[in-house]
């Protein structure tokens, strides 16, 4: 037995043992917190998984398979125009960085053989915030306002931070590695508008299936709400048409998949979730038995689901245990949270962005955690500050960034992110007050 290596496990077991030994099971705060954790998990399961997360996984999977990365990367190459490079770097995270594990290789690639430090930093910063899954879940759970502010804030500030980094380190011209970029092969020959229309139908299904009931009982929004399943259905039929004409899926397969959906829609019109689930299952089966391209779409969708769902379940459980649902308390008393990040003071914003920068958020878990914090009195400004500083940075990924661009640049980058997040949180807080 190699005890120089085993001690870590021993320590872990000891910590868990002590926690279990002294667990305050009989206190009402603890019992409440456990209950809150399960309540929150059930709420996520009922409200967010079927209609929101599953279509979002299909969209993320489609992006990973059907968006031609080479066509995006040519704007981030060594010869690219600077202005274009910054613009593309700040938004391309939405199609390139669909998974957190792809951000770092792309970052170091852009830095070392592409457009250089500024655009690389812009990409690194914006990537996690503009990725589709993050935007969808943020807007859905935390509100459209915060979701949009997060995406726009991340894009704008990524350019600012990138330009600042380039200015600060303009004297150090890094030696470029002169290697050919190796790109994955592009998909089949579909034109841009065909792909665009295809993504639009997917987005349409997602948006209208999740159309929330508006406050008033009349007006355009309410009419759309009443017709949301009809509109979702029309988009689904559109998706079917696209699949048969451009993806060469056999029409009779889609028709067979459509039969159970139609039956469930007519028999149980009050429970559209059943028809929707039948649709998801039908689509999956059709894709599974399809050609290369369709199978790849399903594979990468499944990859996302497999990676993200366990993390999210764990994140929701922890957030529920520590923070409780909105308006309820978990293990951590609300006053503590309120005194640290309540209101919209500069200090609260700074604290939120500083803590967010060093804390590690597994993909998407920032959403339930933030929801808990807001429910306990966190201000909207500090919430945005945390969203802007958090997912882009964590202690472990700072170490990787340091190995790519050195200690000095990393410290400057982290400081810039914290300062920018603090300021933008402060401004957002003032606007939304």
């Amino acid at each position, binding site marked *: 037995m190699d005890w120089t290596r085993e001690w870590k496990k021993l320590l872990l077991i000891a910590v868990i043992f002590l926690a279990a030994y002294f667990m305050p099971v009989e206190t009402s705060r603890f019992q409440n917190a456990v209950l809150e954790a399960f309540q929150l998990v059930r709420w996520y399961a009922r409200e967010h998984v079927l209609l929101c997360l599953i279509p979002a996984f299909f969209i993320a999977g489609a992006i990973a398979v059907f968006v031609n990365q080479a066509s995006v990367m040519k704007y981030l190459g060594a010869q690219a125009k600077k202005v274009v490079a910054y613009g593309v770097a700040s938004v391309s995270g939405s199609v390139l960085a669909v998974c957190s594990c792809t951000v770092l290789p*792309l970052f170091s*690639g852009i830095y070392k053989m592409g457009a250089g430090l500024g655009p690389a930093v812009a990409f690194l910063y914006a990537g996690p915030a503009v990725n589709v899954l993050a935007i969808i879940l943020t807007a859905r759970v935390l509100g459209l306002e915060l979701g949009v502010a997060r995406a726009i804030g991340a894009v704008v500030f990524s350019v600012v931070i990138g330009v600042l980094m380039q200015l600060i380190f303009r004297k150090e011209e890094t030696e470029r590695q002169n290697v050919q970029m190796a790109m994955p092969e592009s998909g089949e020959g579909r034109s841009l508008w065909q792909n665009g229309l295809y993504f639009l139908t997917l987005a349409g299904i997602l948006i209208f299936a999740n159309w929330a009931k508006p406050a008033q009982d009349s007006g355009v929004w309410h009419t759309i709400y009443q017709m949301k399943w009809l509109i979702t259905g029309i988009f689904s039929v559109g998706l079917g048409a696209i699949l048969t004409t451009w993806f060469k899926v056999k029409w009779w397969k889609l028709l067979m998949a459509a039969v159970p959906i139609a039956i469930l829609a007519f028999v149980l019109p009050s429970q559209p979730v059943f028809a929707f689930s039948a649709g998801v299952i039908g689509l999956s089966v059709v894709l599974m038995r399809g050609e290369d391209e369709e199978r790849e779409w399903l594979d990468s969708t499944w990859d996302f689901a497999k990676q993200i769902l366990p993390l999210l379940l764990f994140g929701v459980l922890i957030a529920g245990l520590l923070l409780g649902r909105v308006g309820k308390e978990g293990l951590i008393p609300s006053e503590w949270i309120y005194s640290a990040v309540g209101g919209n003071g500069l200090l609260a914003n700074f604290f939120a962005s500083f803590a967010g920068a060093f804390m590690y958020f597994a993909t998407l878990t920032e959403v339930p955690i933030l929801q808990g914090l807001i429910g306990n009195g966190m201000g909207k400004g500090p919430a945005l500050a945390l969203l802007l500083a958090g997912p882009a940075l964590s202690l472990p990924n700072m170490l990787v960034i340091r190995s790519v661009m050195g200690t000095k640049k990393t410290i400057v980058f982290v400081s810039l992110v914290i300062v920018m997040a603090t300021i933008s949180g402060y401004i957002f807080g003032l606007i939304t007050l």
Partner: protein
Amino acid sequence: MKIKVLGSNCVKCDNLLKNTRQAVEQLGLGIEVNKEIELDKIVSYGVMTIPALVINEKVVSVGKALAVDKIIELIKAAE
């Protein structure tokens, strides 16, 4: 023949490594396949989307967790 997988600890990367090892075993090549996780080295191959498969220092596939028979095909093509 030298075969390498470039990647981190992501699911796809581990799948590619596993499938590549299986392919090498099926072909009876008797060589060891390792994973390169150092970002600097990965980028020096021009690869920005992991996982990637490298045969004889040449990148043959990027961003995909290839199936075993596809890897066998690529190895045979490189011979």
